[in-house]
């Protein structure tokens, strides 16, 4: 592929088609990635609306704004939307768009596979929301069997949930296959793994992770569908089935997805901080190695969600060893990110601001998770709003703050325009205040008063009224902040300041391509000599300019 003979890029003029048909039928990784990112941000909006409805119901004790059934439907839709339709596709959309560019590839290895992946994701989203035509799932964020069995939820909501998430997960697996193949086979000459940008490393790690956890979820979903529709007994107790089996399989997926979201965010932040601190990453090998460790150890910690289940104490200690072991790689990554800033000259633009917000929110979430991994403490805190708050800090920190950092950073590459800085700052500070006001009270309600998760109401006299009211107000502030960035993206798409091909002075190869890149990414596959190829290119151009100027000066007649 990367021989010396020129490649045939275009043969003949392509037929002109309406824009949406062109995008919908394109297998180009940038078109697929862009549709996925736009779709994910759209579902972020829907997830926020669902969260607001639930928080409104929980604003005052014994509220009757939503019926229990409506609340449970919102809860089920919120979980599926936030994870399957927003956080994971945002990660894979960014990877799919950027990782091939970052490693200097002129396309992907299996473009049609990625395109099918996108359409499976869209099909999954359609099926989930088509559930509104009859009855959406009422089985909760993770539809634990046997509650999700036909005997307890006889309408088709759970089937829609299972089919939707199965389709979307299959889509992610296909995209992951393509990313693994592309990153393995199509890197530019000289792009050894030790020079592959951290975000492309994250893409490879998350793709492998998805290849492990995706099929587990697909198996669990298939079993659930067999149970519900073909008299299966996988999860049905009493006929040889095991309700705990669903817990194991689904938690392997959800825990892996949690790690995937955080790895994506940390990978993006590890690209952003060096650029805005004008310093190379403190230690690349430590960061990439730690991200690999997070994927492996983190997924092995799945039983941390089952510390109150009837499993042996040995398994509980195993879960605790794995979750506490995560302190080392997560700590190392954050240490290296902060050390990168020390001694730098920080340029406080929106991408850096959102990155720092992400690190801060993730630190609060993961810090609290430390106590959740201590077995006896989990017996107190498991399934309280303390767990809700910890999970939301980590995952909103990762997927929303981290995702927005990536969005602001790569928006010029995606659209050729820059996002408005004023609106970005306003959005950031609103979100920062919002997440604290929304979730710190839930920590208190969970730890001090044992308020339980997922309940459609709480009772007056249990001491959590004030906390819940404040949390509702905070959620509205957070939602306002999120909305501001979404509005900013829509406005900047057409009205933003025009960006050059290298908006921020980045060091990775995506900034070598045009903004937005041509369909074939690069006219010439770049030659990579270090882990900062774009910096080398800039220096080479500067040297050449200086040489030309000197030559021009020297040939001038002396006056």
């Amino acid at each position, binding site marked *: 592929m990367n021989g010396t003979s020129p490649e045939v890029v275009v043969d003949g003029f392509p037929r002109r088609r309406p824009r949406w048909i062109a995008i919908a039928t394109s297998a180009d990784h940038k078109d697929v990635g862009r549709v996925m990112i736009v779709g994910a941000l759209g579902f972020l909006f829907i997830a926020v609306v669902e969260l607001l409805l639930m928080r409104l119901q929980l604003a005052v004790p014994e509220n009757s704004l939503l019926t229990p059934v409506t609340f449970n439907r919102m809860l089920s839709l919120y979980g599926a939307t936030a994870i399957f339709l927003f956080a994971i596709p945002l990660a894979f959309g960014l990877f799919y768009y950027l990782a091939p560019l970052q490693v200097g590839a002129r396309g992907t290895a299996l473009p049609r596979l990625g395109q099918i992946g996108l359409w499976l994701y869209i099909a999954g989203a359609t099926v989930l929301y088509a559930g509104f035509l009859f009855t959406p799932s*009422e089985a909760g964020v993770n539809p634990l069997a046997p509650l999700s069995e036909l005997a307890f939820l006889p309408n088709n909501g759970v089937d829609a949930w299972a089919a939707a998430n199965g389709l979307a997960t299959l889509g992610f697996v296909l995209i992951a296959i393509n990313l693994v193949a592309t990153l393995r086979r199509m890197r530019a000459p000289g792009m050894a793994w030790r020079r592959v940008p951290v975000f492309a490393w994250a893409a490879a790690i998350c793709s492998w992770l998805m290849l492990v956890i995706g099929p587990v979820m697909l198996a669990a979903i298939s079993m659930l569908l067999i149970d519900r529709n073909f008299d299966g007994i996988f999860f049905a107790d009493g006929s040889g089935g095991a309700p705990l089996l669903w817990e194991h399989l689904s938690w392997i997926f959800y825990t892996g997805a949690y790690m995937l979201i955080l790895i994506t965010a940390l990978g993006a932040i590890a690209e952003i901080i060096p650029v805005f601190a004008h310093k190379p990453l403190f230690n690349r090998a430590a960061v990439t190695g730690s991200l690999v460790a997070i994927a492996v150890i983190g997924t092995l910690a799945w039983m941390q969600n089952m510390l109150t289940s009837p499993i042996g104490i040995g398994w509980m200690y195993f879960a605790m060893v794995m979750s506490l072991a995560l302190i080392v790689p997560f700590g190392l990554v954050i240490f290296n990110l902060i050390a990168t800033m020390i*001694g730098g000259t920080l340029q406080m633009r929106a991408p850096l601001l959102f990155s*720092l917000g992400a690190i801060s929110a993730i630190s609060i979430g993961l810090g609290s998770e430390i*106590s959740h991994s*201590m077995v*006896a403490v989990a017996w107190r805190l498991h399934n309280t709003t303390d767990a809700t708050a910890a999970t939301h800090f980590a995952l909103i920190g990762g997927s929303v703050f981290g995702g927005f950092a990536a969005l602001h950073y790569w928006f010029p590459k995606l659209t050729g325009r820059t996002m408005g800085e004023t609106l970005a700052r306003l959005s950031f500070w609103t979100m920062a205040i919002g997440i604290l006001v929304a979730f710190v009270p839930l920590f208190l309600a969970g730890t001090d008063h044992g308020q339980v998760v997922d309940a459609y109401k709480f009772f007056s006299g249990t001491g959590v009224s004030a906390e819940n009211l404040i949390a509702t107000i905070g959620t509205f502030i957070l939602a306002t902040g999120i909305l501001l960035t979404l509005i900013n993206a829509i406005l900047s798409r057409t009205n933003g300041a025009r960006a050059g091909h290298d908006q921020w002075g980045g060091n990775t190869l995506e900034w070598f391509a045009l903004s937005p890149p041509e369909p074939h990414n690069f006219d010439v596959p770049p030659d990579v000599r270090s882990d900062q190829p774009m910096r080398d290119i800039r220096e080479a151009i500067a040297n050449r300019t200086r040489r030309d100027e000197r030559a021009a000066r020297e040939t001038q007649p002396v006056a």
Partner: protein
Amino acid sequence: MAPHSPGTDQIDTLLWIGFVAATIVIVAINVALIYAVHCYRGSRGAEPRQIRGGRRTQFRAAAGLTVFAVAIFVVSVIYTGKARETPTTGPAGLASARSAPLKIETTGQQWLWRYDYPNEAFSYYKLVVPVDTTVELDLVSTDVIHTWDVPQLAGKRDAVPGKTNHVVFRADEEGVYHGQAATFSGQAYGAMRTEVDVVSPQEYEDFIKRQKTDIQAAQDRVVGLIEKGEVP
């Protein structure tokens, strides 16, 4: 929430240790972030120092983090072990529970808890136990997964259909303790509460005796109605 059982005493202590560990982590990271932003904000003429960290720095950082993680692990194992110990019934407790814990079968069902006492009496929603007596709840479920949680008396445990889980506690003070089921179990999950009345051993004996005769009387009445041909 004040703990009222030896197990929850240990859980409470470990919770504080966990809180301190979490606070250390959160404060350390955020202070470092604020320091970095405060001191290294770009200004005119400032040149970034092009330094990279060597392998030794990384090993030191990793070693420090490992020590921290191991310390938390060891402390957790010690306190978890203590929290799992089965206490013995105290002098003020039920005499018949001296040698073995008082076993009460606890059944989770959508959306109510049923308690079956040793003398075949049973009660719904409200569990009555004697003070200073080791009580073991055998948790089972007849339908979906529920979690029994009365945080002042014991750590929470899941009732999973087809499996038996155990909760052990010894309430140290008479009174009423409240709890709420903690695993999403469908429509009325939010209203699935329970109440534990801790009473003196004498009152407990009276309660299960009264409960048994009441249940027997109600059954006899229903059987009588059916024998008379009336639909109850």
